[in-house]
């Protein structure tokens, strides 16, 4: 897939990077970033996946969601376009800020058609919530290097048990989730 993306982006000189994230967990599936770029796709993909998810939920609440939804962000340095490719994948494309919007749309249409063509069909896996919470903490906790220890201490779940989060009991998962909310300063986790 990565090699295919490399071929697909070759004709778009103002493209800085593209990342394809798998939903609903915002995990990076495939990416390409132009040589010499200071950020990596791994660093940004999860944030934009969450942005798309929040956007989707917000539009649904407004009753105006459609699968053609696209988010465009015009920052001082770059132009970011996020597009749902399917219910399973989101693509984020980062262009130079100087790229004309019309050209961006044209390139984007061609590029994402090619990318969509080779994406696999995913059978959504009902992954254990404990596992997903630990992965979420790993991405967003302020001190990810210490988060397992912190959760263990706060939730009263042993380190051995936390090493197998898929096997936690319902009560432990609830305590894990409460602790994750506390550590992240949120009322609920958007998993």
């Amino acid at each position, binding site marked *: 897939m990565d090699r295919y993306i490399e071929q697909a982006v070759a004709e778009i000189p103002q493209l800085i990077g593209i990342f394809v994230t798998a939903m609903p967990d915002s995990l990076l599936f495939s990416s390409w970033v132009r040589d010499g770029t200071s950020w990596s796709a791994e660093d940004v993909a999860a944030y934009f996946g969450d942005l798309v998810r929040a956007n989707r939920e917000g539009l649904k609440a407004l009753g105006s969601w459609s699968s053609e939804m696209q988010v465009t962000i015009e920052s001082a340095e770059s132009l970011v376009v996020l597009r749902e490719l399917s219910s399973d994948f989101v693509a984020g494309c980062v262009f130079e800020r100087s790229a004309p919007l019309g050209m961006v749309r044209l390139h984007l249409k061609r590029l994402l058609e090619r990318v969509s063509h080779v994406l696999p069909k995913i059978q959504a896996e009902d992954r254990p919530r404990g596992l997903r919470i630990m992965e979420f903490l790993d991405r967003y906790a*302020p*001190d990810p290097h210490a988060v397992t*220890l*912190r959760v263990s*201490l706060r939730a*009263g779940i*042993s380190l051995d048990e936390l090493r197998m989060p898929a096997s936690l009991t319902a009560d432990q998962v609830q305590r894990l989730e409460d602790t994750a909310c506390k550590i992240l*300063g949120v009322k609920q986790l958007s998993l």
Partner: protein
Amino acid sequence: MPIGDLRQLLADQSLTFLAGIPYVYHCHHYNLFHDQTIDDALGEAEGARVRTTAAHNAFRELLGAVFAAAGATTPAERISLATEVFSWMGQGRMSLDITAAGGRARSPSLHYGFAWREKYGARVKRDEPTDAVAAGFAAATTELAFDLAADAVTAVEQRCLATRDPECEFTLTPGNGHLSRPAIDQATVVRYVASPVRGVDEDRIAAIAAGLLEFMRGVQGDERGLVAAFNVFVTAHLPAYYNETVYEAIHHIERTAAGGVPAAEALMREAGQVCVFNTFGNVLLSPEWEGLVGAPTGVATDVMSFSTAIARGLGFGHWLVNEYEPRKRLVLQATSNYEVPFYRARYGVAKKPRSYFVQGAALAMMLLAETVQWTERPQLTNAYYIELFRGKPRYRVEQTRCMMRGDTTSEYVVDAL
């Protein structure tokens, strides 16, 4: 009397005192991680209570000694001197509007709240205030200014920079009072140090440590009462605060939830790693260090000696390298550190080694000496920290001797896995 004139140095043990009360230097990364660990162990409410009480006790010791040494006798004189000391320490600039019955305190720039917002504010929304140290300080100042008994005043932070308020605010109200405990002062400290021992590269380490100690004499709070140095916010801080919070928390866990002890101890060791990576690392990369010692060489044995010298220069005690074989083994020893006197005086002889901070620091020194490309002057970011310390462990640390346990010296052995 300038506050700097109240400093004393127990030179052969690399221990520093202000009006006879021990102090050390720690950066905001360590301070925030330390407090976070206390709250992880005890929960927010009890954590804040323990931290505030520890700060209250520690500042009663310090300010009582400072007032006596400076001959400050009137409330106005004492309040003024106390806030000056607090600011000098890099803890922030506070305004106190107090009487013997209590009052209010506020600050636009407290070390903990300010640094928390700088480090975590963009990522985490916080509901609880951060400034237990300032609360304890405000309560202690009020009591001592008006010659009140220990714990006659209670301080509670109502607004905080870390919870996105424009400034920190505290209310001071009458407390319940409790018996004060003897101060852990210089006379107490010297009872719990061993005769200094020469380690590997001793002469160079001693010379650099002396230079750093001299340099630190010029470090003091700016107009905000903060010390921005070495790419971190630095505080002169009271070991009594760190020690009381750590050992009260770990004893509590041992009594009530023994299964949590490994995680609690690991986090306390991690705090030592956080300190060495951020403070030692940024000192090593600073222009001040280059002026003092020279440009980074990247040689592992140099980094190990330099780290040992930094520990001494920050007042952590007489650390020495007993044995060092790059990529294989480090045997770090200490004839004094800032944890031992407090533990022995307050709790007696420990049943097991308990210098968690130095355990973590030793491990981090091994990694810093051998992994970081110092000549390339890397940015010591959080991402780099994670890269270094996460994943499959490369070393393990064991404290083989501990003066808290009654051993003649403390020893930390780091071995490659």
